[in-house]
């Protein structure tokens, strides 16, 4: 569906009209071979743990998702209703592929998976997320994580 021509016109037009900050190219961090990398998953699907408060509109913070968290304790509390949630209903891995990453670790593709993954609720001014992203980077460094896969909604 995310080919432009396949999107419903109203949704496509709304998304094209969203303001995007003008960010300069960022020099690449050279992660080295994947076999020496520890990878975290970072979602912007507004994933909350069951029993936690939902993400609020315009939330810029991130929530930790510790590795023992069961799929049944992951909820999407994102504010938007304009993306499909039925894939997540059937299989949490389609939004946060923790087991898939673990399988790639077991297959020797990557060295390791982070002990904690994270979720933002992405529907906010991106520039207001910067201090939170920097705080997250400090947490990732403290976990020995040197790489991240960012997953949209």
């Amino acid at each position: 569906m995310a080919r432009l021509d396949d999107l419903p016109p109203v949704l496509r037009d709304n998304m094209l009209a969203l303001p995007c900050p003008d960010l300069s190219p960022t020099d690449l961090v050279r992660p080295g071979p994947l076999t020496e990398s520890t990878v975290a998953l970072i979602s912007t699907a507004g994933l909350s743990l069951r029993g936690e408060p939902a993400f609020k509109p315009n939330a810029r913070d991130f929530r930790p998702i510790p590795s023992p968290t069961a799929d049944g304790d992951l909820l999407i509390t994102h504010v938007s209703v304009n993306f499909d949630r039925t894939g997540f209903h059937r299989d949490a891995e389609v939004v946060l592929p923790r087991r898939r990453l673990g399988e790639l670790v077991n297959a020797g593709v990557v060295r390791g998976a982070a002990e904690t993954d994270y979720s933002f609720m992405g529907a906010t001014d991106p520039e207001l997320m910067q201090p939170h992203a920097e705080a997250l980077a400090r947490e990732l460094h403290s976990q020995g994580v040197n790489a991240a896969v960012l997953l949209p909604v």
Partner: protein
Amino acid sequence: MSALGHYLEAAGIATVCISLFRPHSERMRPPRTLWVPFDLGRPLGEPGDPAFQRRVLKAALQLLAEARQPGVIMDYDQQAPGYADDPGWLPPFAAATPGTPAGGATLRDALKEELQALTPAYRQAVARHGRTTVGNSGLPLNQVVGFLCAMANGELPDSPIPGQRLAMAMRLAADDLKAHHLEAAAASGRPSSRQLQGWFWDATVAGQALIRLRSSVMASDDRLLRMLGSGQLVPAEHRVRLGL
């Protein structure tokens, strides 16, 4: 999300973004992007297909390791099989379906009856997938029904969720109602997201209840209620299609 890629990379974390909307990636040029042609909401493409998901994730990780220039966008061209409709799927209501309350039934009674009718399918779905995503509001479904129907009828009850404003409680309760019905509808077969959403908004009392709720709260004096009601109950595609 592209901005997050920039900020994390600048803070020393190598990143790759999976992108579902290429124009944003083109404009914002995060460090590395794997564009995928999947439904919004499905970054790994195909639920219940580990091999497919692994290929997508592996492609993203390979880009992470091999990209040489910032701002690279690589296209992943394999479409998810579940993008296509399932021609053999049958929605839960096999025959005449309540779509709207009939014969003088109240909205609440009709919705309760619909919940009851869907119970076997919902239980089958929970057993099939090992979990449910109902729970955003933390309320039992019967309370969700009572609360949303009251608001659809023009009432403004107190928020039933401690610490949440009425408008947020409404949104979270609506999330739960939709999750329940859509999980039940996908208990068997492999319906596409289009088939499921079409069924919900066209053929269920729940869909009609949320449409009525939207209309009711958009006349409210509460700005947040109007805002959430306007944009966060019924998807834009269906608002346009149904002329709301």
